[in-house]
């Protein structure tokens, strides 16, 4: 755990964060089935401890990578840092404006047009109409969507969808950018452009928190990395070290497979 105390240098401070999900065993709970179960006096709630006392700091301008197996709690951590989920215990301090690019999409309603989604997403995130209008041109240009911006997003290919998501996330002028396994935006041409843009965000003294299964990306982009497992922080350190420890742990013969999972 980083023990630097100069808080004016810290962008994200995560202290002893616990997140527990209470999961209803039923997938789509209905009033009818709940009443039936209550009649039978059944209790169908399970607890899942997705994060159990995670602490670390991310400093201003730093790119922090997060690795871990499926179910390790990476996405939960990203959503808690973004303020979407609430910690059950602990505290998270964020210094700066956060923009997210999460695996689940960017809050798009596919019945609405790309333009409507960008405006609504921006307003919900607290931008003014003026700010959105100022960024809108850049976003469309970067996403290379042209006239498609006026069409419902259900007419988009998945590449177009993620291009727009990426464009929105990086053009919000975030101080902190959170990316969860969403780097595979579009084709090779767009990936290259995306990489350049991300570098630019970092160079503008931006801070980044990146989850990726593509260990190559972590190695290349990050200054530091953490390894989560079963909701606990196993190790924090230089990306090379962490990746080595992680791949050893995974004990897969060919890390090439993991390295190219992009």
């Amino acid at each position, binding site marked *: 755990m980083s023990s630097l105390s100069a808080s004016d240098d810290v962008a994200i401070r995560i202290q002893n964060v616990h997140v527990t*999900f209470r999961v209803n065993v039923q997938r*789509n*709970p*209905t*009033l*009818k089935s*709940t009443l039936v179960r209550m009649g039978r006096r059944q209790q169908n709630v399970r607890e899942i401890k997705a994060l159990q006392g995670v602490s670390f700091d991310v400093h201003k301008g730093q790119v922090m990578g997060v690795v871990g197996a499926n179910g390790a709690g990476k996405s939960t951590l990203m*959503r*808690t*840092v*973004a*303020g*979407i*989920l*609430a*910690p*059950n*215990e*602990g*505290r*998270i*301090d*964020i*210094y*700066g*404006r*956060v923009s*997210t690019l*999460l695996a*689940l*999409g*960017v*809050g*798009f*309603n596919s*019945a*609405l047009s790309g333009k*409507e989604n960008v*405006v*609504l*997403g921006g*307003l*919900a*995130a*607290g931008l*003014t*109409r003026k700010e959105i209008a100022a960024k809108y041109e850049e976003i469309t240009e970067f996403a290379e969507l042209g006239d498609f911006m006026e069409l419902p997003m259900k007419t988009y290919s998945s590449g177009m969808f993620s291009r727009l998501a990426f464009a929105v996330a990086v053009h919000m002028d975030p101080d902190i950018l959170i990316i969860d396994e969403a780097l595979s935006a579009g084709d090779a041409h767009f990936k290259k452009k995306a990489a350049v843009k991300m570098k630019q965000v970092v160079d503008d003294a931006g801070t980044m928190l990146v989850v990726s299964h593509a260990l190559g990306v972590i190695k290349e982009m990050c200054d530091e990395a953490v390894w989560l497992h079963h909701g606990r922080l196993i190790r924090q350190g230089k990306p090379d070290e962490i990746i080595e420890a992680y791949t050893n742990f995974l004990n897969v013969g060919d890390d090439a497979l993991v390295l190219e999972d992009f």
Partner: protein
Amino acid sequence: MNSKTISTEDDYLGEHHVYEPHHVGLPPFGPYFRELRRRRGFAFELARTQMHAANTDTALGQIWLVLNPMLLAAVYYVLTVVLVRSGNNGQKVVPPADLIAKLSPGQIANYGWESFAHLTSSLFLFFLVSTIILTGANSVIQGGALIMNTPFPKMLLPLSSTYLAFRRYLPTLLVYIPIHFLARRPISINTLWAVPMVAEAVVFGFGLAMLFGTLQVYFRDVASFLPYFIRIWLYLSPVIYYVENLPKAMKPFMILNPLFPIAGGYGEALGGHAPSMQMVLGGAAWAIASCLIGGLLFMSREREFAVRL
């Protein structure tokens, strides 16, 4: 109860956020409502976008909005005025005694039109409330992708559907105005009482929108039960009858129906009479209670929405 704080130390887009549990289960009201206010543009824009998507912003779309309650009003008119008259061997239907005292000779001579005016105006108000509740119940579920990816005061979602329902209510007023005059209903200073009564209806509906929006997250079948309750509620409210039609013995129980004072007071106002204080204050009490209960439930649960969707 664990929860998230959106505490912004400076309002300027929140340079310092703290996320931690707070055990009362409610976010601090100051920052919450400040953020709600600051992002209200989202609620209006969402409503506008939805009207656009449903073509309600076109002339034909607006006509359609009005046609539905109009047709229903016509059906009830046939049931309550025409059929009752023919059941009376063609005798004119006479208004109840209490009502006669309130009507002008012109209105009594025109009782058919008067009933029709009462029916349409009350139905439009009832549709305002039921649309707020029905769209509000689904607003949280429909905001799914956004809730999963952006932190914002979720109350913006039922707020938006309330605004949407209100916008859809406005064109019905244009339909009502000519009917008002055909029924020889008076226009007086008392007519202005309609404004606070509509406000009570909106606030009351907003509270229930938050209540059912929350319940719908936990029980996905709530919205499918709602239309039945709303239909029964319609028959229990002074929409297809006048307050004066009620047997005396039933009146004390009517305070239990929130729409009794609200729709009743609205009906009085449009008939040119000042509604009784009992109605005005009773309706206000229901509106405030609904908003408090719905709002507190909503705010104490909204941090769980991202997990439940």
